[in-house]
């Protein structure tokens, strides 16, 4: 083992040997510390400030806030609600997603490509938009479902309502299916079919193989997907805000929002920070559970690097029911969007009828494009999406390269810090960002949201780039060094082109999430940095339902027009590479 002296000597050597990489790593580390660690430190400091004070104005440390938060009679209800909401949505989401993923990956279900594209494109539909659609469909007063049911069965009052915990769980559960589908489909696709063949060769029946081989092999993977989604749902903010507040089902994230944006008194930042700290602890515990599970599932890893074609089971008589199930799911997902589309052409919200059909108008769209504040929101959104996605991906590629390839401590530190934000609930990060930049010129501009989004999504970016980079043979990079290229030339000429499909997909993910997010825009809102998502929320609560609907339609269509073509292009790029690399397999190549 090396003694500390020779280790510091090793550090010195490295600094002289590869100055560029080391300088870049130090800069990145400093940037991450400012982006990720500083807000959290300030958050913690604020939670220790006297009630109602900001940390800049005081040097007193007190546990007063913790006392009042723990004595708060609603805290157990809040935590119970949060856990119930997360558990319910994950059960529904994973259940439906597993069924569809299994049908798509392991059976001869038709229209596989269409289903995959639709699942991915769903990312373009912001959860708030879905929630608004569901409210129009299922609100207790003039929701379409209620009107229809009353008319059909001659009932009175609210037959069903979206304003309940159960409805909220169901809606969110269906909304996370696409995300869960992507992850579970990956699990199923990478499973070596030989393991199943071995089961049936040795005498197990079709269902027996599923029960004794397939399922046990998948359990660790499914468990880690479940916990990851559970974590995301504990942190979820948008649907609990739009539906949960009216339903009187507050969760931790909405409670923090209410504390920070109280209508009756000035915001109590120190108590907010205290709740944020609790929330952070809960998320950190879940994170540890997640890592445990992942480590466990690593042991069961049946993913081999080889490309293989999993066996497809013929559906036979189940073909029609399976197609029916998938179609019903997509129909349910389309409904909220369709009702918004309908409303966007109406002067006021009305249940579809021949009479209402006659009132169709384009006035709402004219309103959207005619009002300067909405135009500004749209411009802000474009800036936000382009910059946050691009900055995240550029930083991610560099951080990932350093943490994957360099064996030093800097790389390790970068990897850990860039991963931290996964455990920080967006509301907590939003409060922390608000506290730290409140007194800077950045506050009130769209750039503070860009900054917050970069912080929030850097973990996703580095993780996907890490995974992608591991598939690239390091000799490809070493070859360029030996050929005389420097580090940046290597990144530009070798890494970026090779990772392009992954970078595009990651860019899309960040862009989509940046556009649909309402957490940061709402927490950091001023009159000058409204973006489309926050504008949508403002219009909805005003309420200007038809204008909001029109804006929602524009937002969704705008996102779709970016997501679908870029995704198709990235997929083609990647499959092209795969085909080519197969052609280069010496066994398949034509003899010389």
């Amino acid at each position: 083992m090396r003694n500390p002296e020779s280790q510091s000597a090793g550090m010195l050597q490295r600094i002289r040997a590869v100055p560029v990489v080391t300088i870049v790593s130090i800069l990145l580390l400093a940037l991450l510390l400012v982006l990720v660690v500083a807000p959290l430190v300030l958050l913690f400091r604020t939670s220790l400030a006297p009630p109602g004070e900001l940390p800049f104005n005081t040097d007193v440390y007190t546990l007063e806030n913790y006392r009042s938060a723990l004595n708060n009679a609603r805290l157990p209800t809040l935590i119970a609600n949060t856990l119930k909401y997360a558990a319910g949505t994950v059960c529904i989401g994973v259940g439906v997603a597993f069924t569809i993923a299994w049908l798509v990956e392991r059976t001869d279900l038709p229209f596989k490509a269409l289903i995959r594209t639709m699942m991915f494109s769903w990312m373009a539909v912001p959860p708030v938009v879905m929630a608004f659609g569901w409210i129009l469909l299922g609100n207790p007063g003039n929701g379409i479902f209620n009107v229809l049911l009353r008319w059909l069965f001659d009932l009175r009052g609210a037959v069903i309502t979206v304003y309940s915990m159960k409805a909220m769980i169901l809606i969110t559960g269906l909304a996370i299916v696409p995300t869960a589908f992507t992850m579970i489909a990956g699990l199923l696709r990478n499973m070596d079919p030989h393991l199943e063949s071995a089961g049936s060769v040795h005498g197990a029946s079709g269902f027996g193989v599923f029960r004794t081989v397939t399922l046990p092999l998948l359990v660790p993977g499914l468990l880690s997907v479940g916990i990851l989604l559970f974590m995301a749902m504990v942190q979820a903010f948008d649907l609990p805000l739009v539906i949960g507040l009216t339903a009187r089902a507050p969760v931790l994230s909405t409670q923090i929002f209410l504390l920070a944006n109280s209508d009756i008194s000035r915001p109590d930042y120190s108590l907010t920070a205290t709740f944020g700290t609790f929330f952070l602890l809960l998320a950190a515990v879940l994170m540890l559970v997640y890592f445990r599970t992942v480590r466990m599932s690593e042991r069961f890893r049946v993913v081999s690097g080889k490309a293989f074609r999993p066996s497809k089971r013929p559906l036979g008589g189940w073909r029609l029911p399976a197609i029916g199930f998938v179609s019903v799911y997509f129909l349910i997902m389309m409904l909220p969007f369709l009702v918004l589309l309908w409303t966007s052409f109406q002067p006021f919200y009305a249940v579809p009828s021949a009479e209402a059909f006659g009132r169709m108008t384009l006035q709402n769209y004219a309103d959207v494009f005619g009002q300067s504040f909405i135009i500004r929101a749209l411009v802000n959104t474009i800036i936000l999406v382009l910059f946050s996605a691009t900055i995240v991906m550029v930083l991610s590629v560099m951080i990932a390269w350093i943490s994957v390839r360099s064996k030093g401590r800097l790389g390790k530190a970068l990897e850990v810090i860039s991963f931290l934000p996964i455990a920080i609930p967006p509301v907590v990060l939003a409060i922390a960002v608000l506290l730290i930049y409140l007194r800077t010129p950045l506050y009130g501009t769209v750039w503070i949201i860009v900054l917050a989004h970069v912080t929030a999504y850097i973990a996703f970016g580095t993780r996907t780039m890490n995974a992608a980079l591991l598939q690239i043979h390091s000799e490809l990079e070493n070859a360029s060094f030996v050929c005389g290229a420097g580090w940046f030339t290597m990144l530009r000429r070798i890494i970026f082109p090779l990772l392009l499909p992954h970078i595009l997909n990651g860019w899309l993910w960040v862009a989509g999430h940046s556009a649909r997010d309402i957490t940061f825009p709402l927490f950091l809102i001023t009159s000058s940095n409204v973006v489309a998502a926050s504008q949508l929320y403002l219009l909805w609560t005003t309420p200007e339902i038809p204008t909001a609907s029109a804006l929602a339609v524009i937002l969704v269509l705008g996102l779709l027009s970016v997501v679908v073509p870029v995704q198709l292009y990235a997929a083609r790029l990647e499959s092209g590479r795969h085909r080519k690399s197969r052609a280069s397999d010496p066994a398949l190549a034509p003899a010389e």
Partner: protein
Amino acid sequence: MLELENLNKTYPPTSGRAQGAVPEPALTDFSLNIKEGEFFTLLGPSGCGKTTTLQSIAGLEHPTRGRITMAGRTVFCSATNTIVPSNKRKLGMVFQSYAIWPHMTVFENVAFPLVHGHGGCPRSEVRQKVMGALERVGLHDFADRPAPYLSGGQQQRVALARSLVNEPSIMLLDEPLSNLDAKLRDAMRVELRDLVKSVGTTTIYVTHDQTEALSMSDRIALLNKGRLEQLGTPDQIYNTPRTTFAAEFVGSSNILKGRVVDVSGQRCTVQLAFGMVTCPVTGSVEKGQTVGVMVRPHGIAINPAEPNGANCFAGTIRQISFIGEFLDMQVAVGGESLRVFVNSYKTHRTGEDVTVQLPVDLCVVLQG
């Protein structure tokens, strides 16, 4: 030309399962002096430190201690903290996986060192130089082909062209033939050596394949567990291995344990389990020393013309495998079993009693 002085390398302990365990050093006091224009091979089993040595020369890995000098220029020295980064060392390298960039054409791959590397080749000359290099490896018709549409052998030629194009002072070849199928490997072995020799660059070749090492090199360094086991020409390495490891790693061998009973001039007598053998003296042999006597399976004569000559013993054939080019036989002599290769046109059968002779000049006394 290239000097390695007392290289030592210890990899940092890997975190995880074997946490806290002190790893074996990858290189221990390893020194070499390679001459200008030489085809030099680092040979050894996996984990012997040959790749670490090559990576250290390339600057992709840095020794813990030691000094590396290239043509009088110190590129690495732990004492003065000198590290010349890889891209400033003016090297050419062929990687084990060829490392052909799949997103570029053949031309772009080969042009890379000229465009981005040292020397600053003027744009107008790039095309001419790239085509010249491709001509050398016989791929001038493939210049515009995307790199993934090449067979293994073609990729290897592109890698060669890329490493030659900028006229490096030293060429590094990291097991370049290990990914080719057997037939192609035989053909490429000759071609590769001829090509490198015609360019005249100093070449360091890393392999674990003794056939490649023996047939291609001017000199071979045999490595074992991070130490230099033996240095010499292919002929020296094969015919007079110094140690048991060298004898076992290069070629097939019979190694018989024994004790030296007499040393006289150029000959010594060793007492084996089944009798006395006379061997030539190599290095220092002392009376009473425990040694191994090595004789190659094809060196042993069966039923020699003089059945009572030196080193002749009676034995019984226990087993015969027909290999095609020769018969691989196990012959029991006393309590020992000898492996003997004989011409496959001879007829032998199992159980046959034979006389085996270990010719004096073909016996080698091994040190340890």
